[in-house]
């Protein structure tokens, strides 16, 4: 079976400095992978390069998505193909209501895939269902995108989009940052509800804590721009006990 995401020997530079030194990662449909590692190990860089954020120079290696060369695609094409990045720090867009944003983005993706625009009643019904399950009040959808949202609300808004756009690959970049336990639980429940055989997730985090809520199938440890160890979910617990120091040397 063809892997959903294959990162092969990826080397990436930012402003002349190499951040990823030949990273390899394979994610199959239905799997949840956790990527752990200390600050500066290149976790966020990996998520940005997969999503196509400008400012990164790929000097070597490949990223294949269902066998297609992802690096040849514009970021919006990647989104339409089903690559979704839940941002560590979701931005605020004043004057653009969340509802308008969701509809514009969803229809842009559908259009790119050659599908018809979702009718307003269908769209509203879907948004109401999902936002209810995520404990997102309707008036929040009428406010500017993330404007005046709490940390928890911003992350729930990310999960809301994930649920609406139905991507096949979700990359969650430090979803736990800035969240208290209750907010984390709500967001994680939302993510868990989206686990499905056709969908893979890459959960990027510093802490094992998040993985108590979103239990991964595979855990990778990153250090200095490489994956230095991979294992089952028990690897996360091991890391929690012994720290990252052992891998600093391995890298």
């Amino acid at each position, binding site marked *: 079976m063809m892997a959903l995401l294959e990162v092969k020997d990826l080397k990436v530079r930012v402003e002349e400095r190499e951040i990823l030194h030949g990273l390899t990662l394979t994610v199959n449909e239905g799997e949840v992978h956790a990527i752990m590692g200390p600050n500066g190990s290149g976790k966020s860089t990996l998520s940005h390069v997969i999503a196509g954020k*400008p400012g990164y120079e790929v000097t070597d290696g490949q990223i294949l998505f269902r066998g297609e060369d992802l690096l040849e695609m514009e970021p919006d094409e990647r*989104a*339409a193909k089903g690559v979704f990045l839940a941002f560590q720090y979701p*931005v605020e867009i004043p004057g653009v209501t969340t509802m308008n944003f969701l509809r514009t983005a969803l229809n842009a993706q559908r259009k790119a895939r050659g599908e018809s625009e979702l009718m307003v009643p269908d769209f509203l019904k879907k948004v109401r269902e999902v936002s209810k399950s995520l404990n997102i009040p309707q008036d929040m959808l009428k406010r500017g995108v993330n404007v005046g949202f709490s940390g928890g609300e911003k992350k729930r808004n990310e999960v809301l989009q994930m649920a609406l*756009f139905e991507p096949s690959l979700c990359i969650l970049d430090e979803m736990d940052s800035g969240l208290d336990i209750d907010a984390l639980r709500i967001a994680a429940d939302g993510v868990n509800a989206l686990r499905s055989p056709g969908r893979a997730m890459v959960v990027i985090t510093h802490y094992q804590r998040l993985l108590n809520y979103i239990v991964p199938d595979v855990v990778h440890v990153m250090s200095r721009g490489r994956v230095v160890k991979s294992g089952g979910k028990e690897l996360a617990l091991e890391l929690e006990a012994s720290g990252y120091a052992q891998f600093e040397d391995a890298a």
Partner: protein
Amino acid sequence: MPAVQETVERVKRIDVDQYRYGFETLIESDKAPKGLSEETVKFISEKKNEPAWMLQWRLEAYRRWLTMQEPTWARVDYPKIDFQDLYYYAAPKPKKTVSSLDEIDPEILKTYEKLGIPLREVAMLEGVEPKPGEEDPARRKIAVDAVFDSVSVATTFKAELKKAGVIFMPISEAIREHPELVQKYLGSVVPTSDNFYATLNSAVFSDGSFVYVPPGVRCPMELSTYFRINERNTGQFERTLIIADKGSYVSYLEGCTAPQRDENQLHAAVVELVALDDAEIKYSTVQNWYPGNSEGKGGIYNFVTKRGDCRGANSKISWTQVETGSAITWKYPSCILRGDNSRGEFYSIAISNGFQQVDSGTKMIHLGKNTSSRIISKGIAAGKSQNTYRGLVTAHRKATGARNFTACDSLLIGDKCGAHTVPYIEAKNSSATFEHEATTSKISEDVLFYCIQRGLSQEEAVGLVVNGFVKDVLQQLPMEFAVEAQKLISISLEGSVG
């Protein structure tokens, strides 16, 4: 390439030569001789069959103009204008007198069709939700007084307006048919001696709209005029006068487009608004004149004097403008708050791209007691353009309890453009309350990437962010216009990001 960098690259590549409205209509025209002299003024007055007092008024303005200097204080830069090298009057040659749309030159009608202007009766917009308290847009009507070059060629809805007692006609007709009103109000807000361009306009104005709303009447429809400059090398000198008598209300929409030109074209309009006791005037503009080509050549010089006089107590004047065109914009729609408790508003979106230069803003002059004013200005600068907000808020000694709120926000796209804010604030009595807020920001790369990651193209992302930025002002436009303006902003952004 970083998103902002890419936007910048695309902005550099803009091809305003593809200006959507750049086409020319081939029709014969009737021109005054080139240059400006007492003879020119007389020619224009004669062409319009004006009474002697009107000619006298023009000539006095012309003589005054000869003694005046072109102002240089605005942050705009352009080669000196040779006022003797321009034509001051051009009219489509009438084949016969027009009394209905069917008789109008089909070439002219075709031009309007290309512009998408609803010359024919009702403009219905689909998919617009009426604001609470407003009636169904499908049933609202827009009366169009289309100005083609200098002569009004079509007026619709005249009958219905007449029933309400509203006078809406070309000012050249009003001079003949309602001389008492014109004589009483013309130049009473913008005197002939006001400024270089207004004085020039007073001498040579060709046509424009005249509106009088009688006491207690709420004008039954939106009034709308489209101006279009079509004659090569012709200065366009529109003159508009709107009077809202006691307790009346009128909303007036003005939209402009012009064909592409190599030579710069001078446009110096004057708009005067008079609101008597308890009256309200809402004046909205969408301006989309040819901005010049990608090297900054050509384009309209737009030197406009727009002023409203809240002459009566409890009167209100509201200016809303969406400025996307012209090579140079020099425009300060202002309010004189003379009546006690009167209110002035200015809502503005000014978008500059390529080599456009915008120096625009407002003046709120508080003279009466407990007068209030509100200024919301949104400037968007892209390309190599310069975008300046220049505003004056002043409270005179007797204007006790005057209040003003000003918010000026600027958004920069790329790093070759400039945004400037020049506010003047004067309070001559201690009971005035003035608030001023100003922000300048660059369009954020992170915000663009966020939108693009969600599936929007670069262009759609910029459009979304900019439309969000200007939302407060768009909401002030009448509904029919808001949709048009939103489209126009998207069109001008299409040009700005490739």
